[in-house]
């Protein structure tokens, strides 16, 4: 599984979405499932899955799936895959 698929799985798990949910277009607070509580769960799950430390600025800037993918690249994960 490439890092984007792993990120999609993390999103579905942390936001409690069905296994077939399309998450690529998701934005923070644009859907009821991704609220502030889910955001914290998501950050924690990403840190576990990718063994990264997400800092405060990254946490409050990660306002979409695309931003989350960018953030992973910044941490050197799957930098060539996008």
């Amino acid at each position: 599984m490439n890092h984007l698929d792993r990120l999609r799985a993390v999103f579905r798990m942390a936001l409690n979405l069905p296994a077939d949910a399309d998450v690529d277009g998701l934005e923070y607070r644009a859907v009821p499932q991704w609220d502030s509580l889910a955001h914290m769960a998501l950050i924690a799950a990403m840190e576990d899955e990718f063994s990264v430390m997400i800092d405060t600025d990254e946490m409050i800037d990660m306002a979409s799936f695309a931003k989350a993918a960018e953030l992973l690249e910044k941490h050197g994960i799957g930098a060539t895959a996008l």
Partner: protein
Amino acid sequence: MFPHPQARVFAAGTADDLTAQALTDRIEHVAERLATLPPGPLFCGMRNDLVSVLRYLGAWHSGRPVALLDPELPGAVLADLARRFRPAALLGFANAPDGPLRRPADGPAPHPDLALLLATSGSTGDPKLVRLSRRAVLDNAAAIASALSIGPGVVSPTSLPMHYSYGLSVLNSHLIAGAAVVLTDDSLLQRSFWNDVDAYACTSLAAVPYQYTMLQRLRFDRANHPTLTTLTQAGGRLDEALVKEFAAQADRFYVMYGQTEATARIAVLPPDRLADKPGSVGVTVPGGRLSVEAGEVVYHGSNVMMGYAHTAADLALGDELGGVLRTGDLGELDSEGFLTITGRLRRIAKVFGIRVNLDDIERLLHDAEPAAATSGDDRVTVWTEGLAAADRAALARRLGAELRVHWSAFDVRSIDRLPLLSTGKIDYRALESLT
């Protein structure tokens, strides 16, 4: 005078900075438009924005009772409320029912003292409204302003929903004291929120326990927001370690206790007593009195509600409680009058600042499968018999949606058999020992 002539309301991200006269003019303008509506209570979907605040204050100004409700209430819940309470209008709701409202029958007019209606929980199993008088709202706002030393120099953002009594108390206590409120619907996890905190030089922030957990996770650093001197906390017990951590970051950290049935606030712990009264929620707000009767915390004060309302007819009722509220909380008072909450009389949990009745949860699940609910800090554990993982996740989603509480509040677990007492009732103690 409410609002105080120096009170200011800033709509974040807009040029709408309403000071003194401008605020009064806008309120009067809205009041004039509301006067064209038929008689009866106004139901407002209360967002943290200027339109909502002006509707609320316009209704207040014109003497019309107003219910401030969750703007995202599901259509079916809102339709049920409208059917039972016959409001003059539904304004600001995302899921307003279609078609004209049924006009009130020739029922009695709402009681002249009635000013404000609030819901006590997100639960569909408990759709009653709390009836608050004009005096209760004003007295509690003034008492809070006094206990928290709120004056014209204080500026607070709306960090909580204002259809929630704690969130509304921030607005009211600031308006009555001539302080300023920055209206924002953003969450603590958005950069825009913190940009506004800095741009408006906010001095005080109100939050419930889960938000303090978030702030800790965000590695909140006061040094980044030097104007922020005061933090307040209510909406359930905050872990002592977090109290210490945030008290060290603020000039003043207020632990507080209250209920919607007492408008909002019952007790406040003065910051200089935080160290020698750990675990206490403080002393009564000015004008109130506390007693403990057979273990139950009883509050006496002019901010106690008039009573509950289940239908439009109840809105005509006068004061049924006489300023005495049996809180349903168990507690202890020490010799100096400091209150410590030790538990709940009834099966009620508080998750993310919202009250949830555990028996309602079991009733909701009755059609699905055998289930029992127990509670911990910010968490309800739902026990099912042999439910698969995917079904447990779906159940948490369903409970979250139906009770209007975030699904992560529900820890759905599976055991072979629910333990029973010899009476055949569920053995909750045995379940709690498993958490």
